[in-house]
């Protein structure tokens, strides 16, 4: 077995060939699917735990205080303790609520997130499925999360949840447009929608450097719209704590609330991961054409670490935005999208198309 940390295709080929050698092809594919599913679920849980802890520490340092520091060394088991406590909480049954939809809603959100993780390239060769319509698939699948939110608000039989869910639904559907247009701008630059080829094309410069002005504008718009997609940051009116109630997940308690809560952090991770892949080069290290020594040093760090580092950098920027700014009102939110982001996006798209045709990118 050749385990090359810089190119994991050999590792995955080895698993594949050893499985096919010992059982029929049908069974081999099934076992592979089970392995990938388990790996994604474990990754999901670990990232969720880490992100919740990171958010609490980041916001604490911005607020001149320390954050969790008692449970475990430096407080790293705080999220585990919170999760154990949520498991013991009583699941309050709702009278007159639509029980099937009520129980289904958190799972839809989780399923949408897991489907999106499946298409992300974590390192060279470490990608669950490499579709040739990668970007399109990611956008389509992350839109499914809004169904879970609307179902949660509707089936709770609570007028405040319904208000919260409707607001959230309108918000997510509007900002889908901005996200889509920003990603399409980069698809124009790359010339392909397949994620692994997009990353290969960024070998000698990330897209944010290659497509200078339009790419930077697209990046900023994508970050804003991505934060609004996940109901986070200055766009969290749907679950505002100091307004009326906790929005669409008011009536959920215990493990179901934990699933919504976790799904929000995973969505933030997915938005950041897509931003990393499309704008910042995915797992590709920073190479400068002609500086061979520099490139060798950059290649020394494994691609998996590059990917996680860049993603957590974007996640940090999203947390920074949340803890600095006050909230937007719902009509201001929609004004921002339809009157500001969308025209800028369309203009940017034309600018990028012009740039690619004229060959002015690097």
């Amino acid at each position, binding site marked *: 077995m050749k385990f090359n940390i810089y190119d994991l295709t050999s590792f995955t080929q080895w698993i594949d060939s050893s499985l096919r050698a010992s059982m029929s092809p049908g069974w081999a594919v099934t076992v592979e699917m089970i392995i990938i599913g388990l790996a994604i679920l474990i990754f999901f849980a670990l990232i969720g735990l880490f992100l919740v802890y990171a958010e609490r520490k980041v*916001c604490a340092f*911005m*607020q*001149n*205080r320390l954050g969790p520091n008692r449970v475990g060394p430096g407080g790293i088991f705080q999220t585990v303790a919170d999760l154990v406590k949520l498991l013991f909480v009583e699941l309050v049954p709702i009278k007159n609520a639509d029980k099937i939809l009520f129980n289904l809603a958190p799972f839809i959100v989780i399923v949408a997130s897991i489907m999106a993780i499946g298409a992300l390239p974590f390192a060279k060769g470490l990608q669950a499925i490499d579709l040739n319509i990668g970007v399109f698939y990611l956008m389509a699948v992350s839109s499914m999360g809004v169904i879970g939110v609307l179902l949660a608000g509707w089936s709770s039989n609570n*007028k405040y949840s319904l208000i919260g869910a409707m607001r959230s639904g309108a918000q997510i559907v509007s900002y889908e447009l901005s996200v889509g247009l920003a990603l399409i701008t980069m698809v124009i630059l790359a010339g392909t929608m397949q994620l692994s080829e997009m990353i290969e094309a960024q070998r000698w410069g990330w897209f944010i450097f290659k497509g200078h002005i339009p790419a930077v504008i697209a990046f900023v718009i994508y970050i804003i719209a991505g934060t609004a997609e996940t109901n986070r940051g*200055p766009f*969290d*009116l749907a679950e*505002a*704590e*100091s*307004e*009326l109630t906790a929005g669409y997940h008011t009536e959920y308690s215990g493990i179901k609330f934990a699933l919504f809560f976790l799904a929000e952090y995973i969505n933030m991770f997915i938005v950041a991961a897509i931003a990393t892949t499309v704008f910042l080069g995915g797992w590709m290290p920073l190479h400068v054409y002609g500086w061979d020594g520099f490139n060798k040093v950059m290649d020394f760090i494994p691609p998996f670490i590059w990917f996680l580092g860049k993603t957590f950098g974007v996640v940090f920027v999203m947390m920074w935005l949340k*803890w*600095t*700014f*006050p*909230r*937007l*009102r*719902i*009509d*201001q939110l929609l004004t921002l999208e339809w009157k500001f982001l969308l025209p800028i996006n369309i203009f940017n798209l034309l600018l990028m198309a012009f740039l690619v045709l004229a060959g002015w990118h690097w």
Partner: protein
Amino acid sequence: MEEAVVNVPLEQEEYIINMGPQHPSTHGVLRLVVSLKGEMVQNVQPHIGYVHRGIEKMCENLTYQQIIHLTDRMDYLSAHINNEAVCLAVEKALGIEVSDRVKYIRTILSELTRIQSHQLFWATYGMDLGGLTCFFYGLRDRELILDIFEETCGGRMIVSYNTPGGLMNDIHPNFQKRTKDFIKYFRKTLPEYDRLLTGNVIFQERLKGIGRINREDAIAWGLTGPVGRASGFSCDIRKHNPYSAYDKVTFNEILYDEGDSFHRYQVRMDEMWESMNIIEQLIDNIPEGAYAEKMKPVIKLPEGEYWQSVETARGELGVFIESDGNKYPYRMKFRSPNFVNLAPLNIMATGFKIADLVAINGSLDLVIPDIDR
């Protein structure tokens, strides 16, 4: 419960929401019964009385020195100024003139109280609107003032430092140095507040034009303090009827015309700068003298009615004492600024959205125990 909401007209598309006594945004135990049509507020009815402790009735069985500790707990963010109001009323009734030292110290402590009250306003207002870090920055800087209070008076929020005739103790030797250090620090830090919140485009869009009340309405409803001054009503007691050492300092009265939430906020930010100017004029020149006049152990006011008004951080606090010659007052009435400022909430909030109601309520800067007393 049923009769409490029967006055609010219940049409077909309207529904009633109860921002109940326990709510993160109402700054105390205030119940707001809001009738909404979609997202628009039609009618807001405040229900008060959850913190009523009977302070005015209790005062009828306490001597004048004992009343001071109750006034601390009315508008607890302007504790010094409340104490000063009762002391000034009693001293005026007895015809006692306190020494200049006492006047200077009372003024300096009042201005420090004003600054810390506005710091807490900034902290909680930012938090209400969603910028949660503002809470920590505002309270971090407020701790320095509370340290000054604790060193001199013994308590951070409940001070009981004034007494009829002067002060309880002389100031601590570190008082002047600590105050000067604080002013130097805060002059550098206050522009940060502006960078974080005041100049922020989201904050301005949330507040400009919201909850407008014009000058005639402000005078008719009797709004005083920063709420009245943001609408153009010049009502600063420190300028019109100066007391303590306010006639010896020069400062500006902050007036704006627009009367919306943003300018109510801006008046308080500017007042912090003015308060720092006042303190700087006084802190180095505290004259020597006695820290309290010699008073009889039992204070008896001559028969009659006495009135004294002071400018707390929220408006005009008036103290009315009716005495029949005994050592207990016959009737003690406090004209509380928050009670009057809460009254026009209905006309300010009608027609705006539910998220604006939180912004308007926060900009009035109410302290509910002062409403209920």
